[in-house]
């Protein structure tokens, strides 16, 4: 057990992952930071150092304001709902009911599908007039809604897809946590005369708290990183009403080919994710563990 690793081997094992990290994480991040201080050069415009000009553009960018509001609304809207649903589904499949494995499978199914496929399926559901959603509305005599073509509904329609897709994944975490809740605590509570609701709120829910914090922080980071379904379903439209931060970066960088401003936006996002990660560690260390 205590045999020491040969020094050479230790160096190799340290260097390989470090190289990977440097090549694919640290170097690109530093490069983005450097690029953000230069203009977007081309054959018709010479490359020049512009200092904080790109960051001033960032502050004056109306589209960015809209995109940040969208991303925030997206996070606030999807995370609590997905967590609530996940707890509900986990309780359901954890109960000794008939057909549990079938239920688990169907709840987890959306998570297994690739996001691009999911987005395409939902694109068809939402198609005004011909899609499933319109036909359901039609059964009740309601007019079809142009879900993805209206600024009022496009983001919400996409959030719905995200909740549907993510809740299944969170359910797995909660299922694991529920199965780790010691039976003797529940037995003791029952002896004291507590009902099922009381047991859930006073015993199970507090014990699920580490999982909730973990899931919430990861979901928050995910909310700023999601891009696939935006590209497939709306391309950020109409009028930027469904554009999220990473999509905006993609569009600026690859379709508008403004690498300098794209780098500036990337710095913003890396900073934001860095803060979220720091908060995650701080919260997890302080609150997540019960002794």
């Amino acid at each position, binding site marked *: 057990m205590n045999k020491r690793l040969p020094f050479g081997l230790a160096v190799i094992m340290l260097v390989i992952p470090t190289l990977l990290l440097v090549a694919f994480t640290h170097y690109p991040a530093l490069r983005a930071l450097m690029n953000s201080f230069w203009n977007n050069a*081309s*054959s*018709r*415009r010479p490359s020049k150092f512009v200092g904080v000009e790109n960051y001033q553009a960032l502050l004056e960018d109306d*589209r960015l304001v809209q995109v940040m509001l969208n991303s925030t609304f997206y996070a606030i809207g999807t995370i609590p709902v997905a967590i609530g649903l996940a707890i509900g589904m986990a309780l359901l499949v954890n109960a000794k009911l008939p057909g549990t494995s079938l239920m688990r499978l169907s709840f987890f199914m959306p998570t297994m599908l690739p996001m*691009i496929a999911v987005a395409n399926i939902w694109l068809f559901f939402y*198609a*005004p*007039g*011909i899609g499933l959603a319109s036909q359901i509305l*039609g059964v009740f*005599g*309601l*007019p*079809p809604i*142009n879900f*993805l*073509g*209206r*600024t009022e509904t496009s983001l919400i329609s996409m959030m719905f897809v995200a909740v549907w897709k993510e809740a299944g994944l969170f359910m797995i975490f909660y299922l694991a946590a529920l199965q780790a809740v010691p039976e003797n605590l529940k037995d003791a509570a029952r002896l004291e005369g507590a009902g099922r609701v009381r047991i859930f709120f006073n015993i199970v829910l507090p014990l699920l708290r580490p999982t909730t914090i973990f899931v919430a922080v990861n979901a928050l980071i995910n909310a700023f990183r999601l*891009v*696939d379904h935006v590209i497939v379903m709306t*391309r950020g*439209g*109409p*009028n*930027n*009403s469904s554009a999220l931060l990473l999509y905006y970066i*993609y*569009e600026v960088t*690859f*379709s*508008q*080919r*403004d690498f300098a401003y794209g780098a500036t936006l990337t710095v913003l996002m890396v900073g934001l994710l860095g803060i979220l990660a720091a908060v995650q560690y701080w919260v997890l260390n302080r609150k997540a563990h019960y002794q």
Partner: protein
Amino acid sequence: MTILTKLAGSCCTAAVFSLAATSLSAAELEFYFPVGVNAPAVETIQALTDEWAAQNPQHSVKAIYAGNYEETTTKALTAANAGQPPQVAVLLSIDLFTLIEEDVIVAISDIANTPQDQAWINGFYPGFMKDAQFEGKTYAIPFQRSTPVFYYNKDAFRAAGLDPETPPKTWDEMIEMGKKLTIKNDSGNVTQWGTRIPTLGLGGAWLFGGLVVSKGDVLTTETGIEARIDTPATKASLEFLLELSKQEVMAPGGISWGDTPKAFLEGQTASMWTSTGNLAFVEENATFDWGVGFLPGGDGPGAPIGGGNFYIFEDTTEEERAAALDFIKFMTAPANAAKWSIATGYVAPRPDAWDTPEMKAYAERLPQALVALDQLQFAEREFATFQRAKVTQYLVDAIESVVTGNAEPAEALKNAQEGADAVLADYQ
């Protein structure tokens, strides 16, 4: 994640093939192409490419389907920036300024400089050459060119008591006829709209260009540094779009490009404005009698021209350029242009292609295909400037914010013009 994988993938393929290319003396071409229509385009391109390779055994060519237009441009530019470009690619005609600015393409008129070559270049429809030329040089050869036309359901016209052989010609007729074509059910919900003009995204901006042309103006000029977003013509065009939904001729809110052919085929709308590139798709799937007309116009007929051209890339050897030019000549030769046009609905880019027996038989079977050709004389170039994607976004945002009811036309156009001017100021 997906973007990274794609990028990495395209870089790797480019690297692998260029290694192979240097080890042989004859040209080994890589040819990137996009697909932007509902048609068996990949099979047709592959068949034509194989035919060229069989006729030129000293060369080889690899046709690479690279996704939609935007993805293909991104891949080609990324590969070129990495020093491993495809030798030849079909990319959007409006990417001309971007490709010139990035310095990745060669002027085809510099390679094709014999009198015969000149005659060949002059053999394309002038309308298609407008956006293939810049500063006196020809940079691209038209290949999959299209223009939107007005598709209408003749059965729906008959049911509404309209003459199925006279589609609307003006905006006023469009509104008047459209009102008769809109059908509501007992609960007051619309089951069939009068027309459908996509208003979202780049497709929406493309069609909007046609509205502006019909009011006697253009959105951009051949200089690549002028965007004419805030003009009386654009204002009138936006107001026409608003009027259509106000008069219940068209569904309110934004209308997507992709769902439009499906909505037409399902009878959700009695007519639609979309690319000729959908002719083959509609012919195959329509269960009703349908016709095609010019786009109804404001002051007269008007349409945008869109689609893709052949480009030859920098960083290629003399042999590769010569082979690429020969390949392009083969692909646009009358018989092959006809084959491509019939398979997809794209407008064959040369008059001599329309003289082939295959094309004559096709025009007889599907006279709708001729409408786009006739409309060509009223068509203008699509929105194209330097920094095209960024400048167009201002126009797209203006159109979208107005049709979704979030802004007034005058104000939205003014803001868009300011944004576009700021971007283009660098080039003045």
